[in-house]
């Protein structure tokens, strides 16, 4: 009897253990399928995560945003970064506000630190995972590209309700995986 109870509650745990990863997937699939697409200019560098494998760390251009006057922020605070696209289609963070915007596209972000009237934001799109041998090469591909004054690297991101999900990383107009394969 007691063992039966243990097994029934254990099965509940099994469902929770499946439900949490499942919801992580669904939330991102939803954004990838129905979100609006933005391109962020970026620079990749290659570190390593013991648990999750190798990735290229991304340094987005313009993730330092001017804080509008009269707004007091502290580090760690949740904020909303408004996005607009320039003529070439690249996204720019235009300003930071502390209330959810009504119509404009935005990313929900955290203030990493403040310096002067600028806020450095944690946008939650700072890693791009790659196969273990490809990740170091990705950095090389990027450097070759930027030297030739060609098109740099950008990150294609889908955003829905302020939640960003990375779609792909492009270098010189090619997906980074293809660009890495091309130099082999």
């Amino acid at each position, binding site marked *: 009897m007691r063992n039966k109870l243990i097994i029934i509650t254990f099965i509940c745990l099994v469902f929770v253990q499946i439900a949490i990863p499942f919801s992580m997937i669904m939330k991102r699939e939803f954004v990838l399928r129905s979100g609006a697409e933005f391109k962020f200019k970026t620079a990749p560098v290659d570190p390593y995560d013991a648990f999750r494998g190798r990735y290229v760390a991304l340094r987005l251009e313009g993730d330092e945003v001017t804080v509008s006057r009269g707004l007091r922020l502290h580090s760690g605070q949740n904020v909303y970064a408004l996005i607009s696209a320039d003529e070439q289609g690249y996204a720019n963070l235009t300003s930071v506000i502390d209330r959810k915007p009504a119509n404009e596209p935005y990313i929900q972000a955290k203030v990493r630190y403040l310096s002067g009237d600028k806020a450095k934001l944690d946008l939650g799109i700072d890693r791009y*995972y790659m196969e273990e041998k490809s990740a170091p090469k990705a950095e090389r591909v990027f450097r070759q590209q930027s030297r030739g004054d060609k098109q740099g690297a950008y990150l294609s991101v889908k955003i829905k309700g302020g939640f960003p999900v990375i779609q792909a990383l492009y270098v010189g107009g090619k997906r980074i995986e293809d660009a890495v394969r091309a130099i082999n």
Partner: protein
Amino acid sequence: MNKKGIKWLYQELPGLVARGVLNQETADKIQQYYGEIKSKSQTSVILITCGTIGALLIGLGIILLLAHNWEQFSRFTRAVLSFVPLIIGQGLALWVLMKRPQSNGFKEGAATFLSLMVGASIALISQTYNIPGDTGTFILTWMLLIFPLIYFMQASLPAVIYLIGITAWSGSRGQSPLEAVLFWPLAAVVVPHFIWALRREIYTIRTTLLSLVMIICVSCATGFSLVRAWPGFWVVLFPAIYAIFYYLGLRRFPGLTTGWQRPLRGIGGTGLFILTLMFTYRYIWEGIRSGYHFLSIDEGAPAFSFLPAQAIAFMLMVLAALFFYDAAKRKDLAFIFFGGLPLVAILVYALRDNPTVVPLLIFNAYLFVLSVSRIILGLRNNSLSVINAGMLMLAALILVRLFDSDIGFILKGLAFIILGAGFLAVNVSLVRRMGGAK
């Protein structure tokens, strides 16, 4: 009496009977008196150890395989694949619960494996969807999903993984005191299992491991989450925590016979001694007077955010004080002198604005009393190890003071020789005395 001793005695009995030292009747009576030795526990311990190590290695291997990042698979395939290790682990655990509910080895191994597979699964999803680098959140999600296994499977290694995980998480939240302090309620979840494990005789190896990890994690988490409750307060907190360890280590539990099986006692006592020795140094108190905080306080954090840390620090102090009171009531001299350190420390902390001479005098005197009390206790109980521990402590105090002072090398050298000779003389005379007492 420990099991090895009884086993040896049983092996000797036939020989003793054959040589006429004992008659068969006495030999039978001896066997009756000590009862059967449970040889089953031996295989069980081996099974638990091997099963767990195997599960641990396989689990880590799978995590590494997934870390390779198989980019030739589509996003959908990888999303489905994320669940495979998890479901295998769950199936294995369920099978053990249904078919082998009595086997501790199976339960420990399956629970360990499943704990790692939960991590593997979330890691693979993070990889597939490029989930940002917040390692803290990743670890916390993982830990919250596995802690029920500690109780479902009565397994200690998931508890070890959980403790290490929440400590790492607490460390990653060091800058926000309100979050870091959640380590304590999270760690409290393990306490019933810890007490259960301490009471079970045959689990000594894993209980030892659990105790060790508990000591290390609690010490680290104190640094991450509590030391900033009040500036310089670590001089009270660490003594309180090590006094609690030491008190728990002195409690008698069945089956814990040798010193290494009781890390709480060994590390608790050693920690208290090292802290006392540290407190006899001037720079500690000068640091506290000048407002050096051991870890810097986040300037942006509002004052109220330290309230939970202060509450937990206060509770730990109350606990240390209660244990001290309990030991004092039982006249437990082994604990009283060591366990008094947090009380002395809090007194000195309250007087920290006085010249540094005051704490220095107090702690030099305290360490002196402490080591002499050990020596006397050892003499009373005829315990060479306790006497030697006391003498070592006394010698350490004398030597550090000698090195602090401007005495010449000749005198320092002489002091070393005299202390060494004293050690030898006391031990020789004690061994003789104890031999004579037999």
